[in-house]
């Protein structure tokens, strides 16, 4: 066990007029994760600390936060890899509900706005909707998203304009736009072609650097932009995945 120093941004809207920094020293192994240190604070020092987490193993996407200036999952970062004090803040660009918990209502609204589900006009076949491995590869990368929000809240375009649909929603749209079984391109591209859509991307790469799933977010965004250009040229309803 070693001493681990943390500097956490605290905010309780019922008591504080502005967020404030508090420092904590806890006992933890260097091979523990930041999440373990946050647990140590909450369980042994200050039970009022609020943060989200569920799976604790990088699967559910609940505990994305800004750690030492970068968006990361607290459950995937080892203490030994970080400079101390470990500075922990809520994700940027969302309203803070309390401490490290942010209001993700709009984030999920945008997620739903790109219709992140299979849209197929034809009646389902008797067996599966077949797809070749090559067709699956086309959108494999964007299936890995766990909707943590690290990408969207690392994006300067999103900080500047909260209406921007954001990288996470574009990644989700990409996952279906490039699926050969899907026919919802027209509806999704309409949302993504708006002023709040994919054209707000400035190729800054913060999203790609932040994604805990290693998704090439910028590539997905550029591919959706290119798809929009191709659609505009054709002016037709041809399926995106062909």
């Amino acid at each position, binding site marked *: 066990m070693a001493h681990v120093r943390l500097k956490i*941004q605290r905010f309780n809207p019922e008591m504080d007029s502005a*967020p404030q920094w508090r420092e904590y020293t806890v006992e933890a192994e260097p091979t523990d994760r930041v999440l373990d240190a946050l647990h140590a604070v909450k369980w042994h020092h200050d039970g009022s600390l609020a943060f989200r987490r569920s799976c604790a193993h990088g699967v559910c996407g609940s505990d994305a936060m*800004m750690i*030492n*200036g*970068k968006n990361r999952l607290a459950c995937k970062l080892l203490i030994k890899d970080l400079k101390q004090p470990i*500075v922990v*803040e809520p994700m*940027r660009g969302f309203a803070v509900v309390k401490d490290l918990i942010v209001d993700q209502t709009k984030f999920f609204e945008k997620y739903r706005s790109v219709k992140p589900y299979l849209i197929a006009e034809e009646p389902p076949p008797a067996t599966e909707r077949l797809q070749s491995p090559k067709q699956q590869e086309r959108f494999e990368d964007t299936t890995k998203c766990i909707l943590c929000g690290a990408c969207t809240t*690392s994006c*300067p375009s999103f900080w500047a304009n909260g209406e921007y649909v954001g990288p996470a929603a574009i990644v989700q749209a990409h996952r279906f736009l490039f699926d050969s079984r899907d026919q919802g391109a027209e509806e999704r591209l309409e949302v993504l072609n708006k002023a709040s859509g994919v054209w707000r991307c*400035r*190729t*800054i*790469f*913060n999203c*790609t*650097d932040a994604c805990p799933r290693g998704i*090439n977010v*910028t*590539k997905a965004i*550029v*591919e959706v*932009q*290119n798809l929009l250009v191709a659609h505009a040229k054709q002016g037709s309803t041809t399926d995106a995945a062909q």
Partner: protein
Amino acid sequence: MSRYRGGIGQWSWMFHRITGVGVLVFLCLHILDTFLIVLGPEHYNAIIAWYRHPVFRVSEVGLFACVLYHSLNGVRIILFEAWTGLVRWHRQMFYVQMAIFAVCMLPVTYLMLRPVFGR
């Protein structure tokens, strides 16, 4: 609140915007000073003479650097659109871009400043 510690992409974008806006501001000023010709050649000549001042000659190197950086970085971004696979190599491409930048700046700076400071 602390600063978000973005990587190369964040910096290259910041410089892209600074140089883009910078060149735009210069362009507007330059349209204005050229416009002075309608007031008569004496006003025009008086203002345009400023461009020969050493401070302006050195600033012109800065202007060239801005345009060069902005164009190279702009071309890099356009290449991503043409070949999306290149996105994976954006850091390496930035290093190459800055090497080209340096190789262009050295002789240009020399050629632009020689008449100001040299013989």
